[in-house]
């Protein structure tokens, strides 16, 4: 509705401008009238927002500039409340190109956020479709015992925290 009203207001302004120009010159000068309104509206908007948008960009730069390169890269994960340090820790231990499978504990409930962030940050390592096809098993919020059958075939557990572990397929 606001879009329609705005458009109608602009048409009305062009018509009024056209009428004034016709009185002054004796001719309909539609291009001049329309151009004048475009210049006024777009000019006012451009002038205002060049300043405000420019300031906002400078402010954004100031805020982001202070962050380290690593902090910039993991900001999204932190905003999702993912344990980003654990994911980075995994990235240092799983060789590039290897496959892994992420098992999430019931508490907190399995999260799409964690899945998306981990699969993104661990590139070029790739998440296998099932634990049986993976070379590494990542436990997030669970233990080998609680994860049950899914940990079968994995051992050599490395612990980052009590419920944050990385296991390797036996014999690989």
């Amino acid at each position, binding site marked *: *509705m*606001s*879009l*329609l*009203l*705005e*458009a*109608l*207001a*602009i*048409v009305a302004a*062009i018509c009024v401008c056209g009428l004034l120009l016709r009185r002054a*010159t004796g*001719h*309909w*000068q*539609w*291009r*001049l009238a*329309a*151009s004048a*309104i*475009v*210049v006024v*509206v*777009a*000019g006012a*908007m*451009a*002038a205002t*927002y*060049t300043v*405000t*948008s*420019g300031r906002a*960009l*400078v402010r*954004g*730069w100031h805020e*982001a*500039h202070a*962050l380290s*390169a690593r*902090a*910039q*890269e993991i*900001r*999204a994960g932190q*905003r999702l409340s993912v344990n980003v340090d654990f994911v980075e820790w995994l990235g240092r231990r799983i060789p590039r190109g290897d496959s892994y499978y992420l098992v999430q504990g019931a508490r907190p409930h399995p999260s799409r956020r964690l*899945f*998306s962030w*981990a*699969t*993104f940050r661990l*590139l*070029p390592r*790739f*998440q*296998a*479709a099932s634990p049986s096809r993976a070379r590494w098993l990542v436990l997030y919020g669970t233990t080998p015992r609680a994860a049950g059958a899914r940990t079968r075939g994995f051992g050599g557990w490395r612990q980052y925290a009590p419920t944050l572990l990385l296991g390797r397929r036996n014999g690989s």
Partner: protein
Amino acid sequence: MAPELAAALVAVVALSVGLGVLRALGLATTPRAMLPAAGLAYVTGIVAIGLPTLVLLAAGVAVDLVTVALVALAVGAVAWGVGLRRAPPVGGGDAVGARPWTRLDRAAVVVFLVALAAMAVVGGMAASVTPLSHWDAWSIWGRKAVVLTQWSQLPVPFFKHASSGMQSPDYPLLLPLLESVHLRLIGATGLRSAQLELWLLAIGSAGAMAFLGALLTRPLVWAPVVLCTVVAPGLYRNLVAGYADAAMAAFLGPGILLLGIWLRNPRPRTLALATLLLAGAASAKDEGLFGAVAALAVAVAIHLARRRRRELAQLGLAALGLALLLAPWRLWVAAHGIPGQIPVGRGLSSGFLSSRSDRIGPTVGRLTHELGNRHNFLLLVALALALCGLGFLFSRVRAVATFYLAVGVLFFGAVVWAICISRVALVWQLHTASDRVVQGIVAVSAAAILQLSGLLPDAGPSPAENGVLGRTRLRPRRRRVEQRA
């Protein structure tokens, strides 16, 4: 390599190739004409290098920095080879551009250039350090950019299996490819500073719109309109955040404007460049495909109504070119059974559509609300609607006004359709994406303002005498004039 140097290197290469393409098409042939055409050359160069590289990628060829350099060299060599043989033609576009500039016009150009340069610098600074913290930015676009950086060929399992975490795997790859070139140049595997390339696209697009706008209207008119396309919060935030919508609009705006210019002055080279840029938009995001198809379909409809065979033949070739440029990626997606987010097949069945009809009202309401949000899009859509409405009153402007209005409406309809048939919950989708998916309409609006404001009649007869209100009203007045004579 430092991110700024990498972006500068990409810009120089794209500019060189783009200037060659413009010269080959006879659109900027002299050194004096090339400087103002730099923005258009930059976006053209990105598309001219990016699309053949994507074809190679879809064909299974390993793509790394050397491959991209070879593609740029090949395209540039062919373009410059053709361009240098071409005799310098007369300048393009409508005749308004030939008008001498007044002091106000000169002042407008100076203010525009200063403001654009300032925005380019501060926006570039912000884009090079802003973290990718919005979901789609890193999960869809960033992930694809990292995949293209880590692998030289398309890893099918990543695109095919949901377990890989790849979201919307069927989305086109032009922007991730551009970002991956940047990441390879700076030697990073993370996503730092990749948005710098998107920001430069927006600045290049503004330059392109200014160059084309100068052919259609006075600097006092085009300068603020083009500046609005850079400083509009809805657009610059999208770019700095690493989304693809505004970057897609950076190709769509000049492409649609070129097609609008072609409608008035149907020269094949204008249509060829329009088709290239529309293909760029379609390769950047699915909404770009909507815009490209809508623009060509409306142009065909207008020329069918006019019964102009020659123009229809040109449009047929343009449609064929567009299909050929877009086919490789779509064929690769189909050949590997990559699932899409939008269930297109089901979305065309009347039963499914009627089951989703309750989503239409809220979607239309929310999208029109976004388009009318003057704090986001600075009244550009309202201005375009007003000029289109006024354009219908004049016979010489009617076709162009119809073109822009119909393209905008079709684009809007396609977005509403895509949202309605999407598997994602409506509330979530409208909440997170409604201000993004309409950005193509803002680009179409900017193009419409630039062309229509220069087309309306000046110092002429009243609207009625100009074919405004239909022939029935014209006849008595004409008769009276004739009787007086």
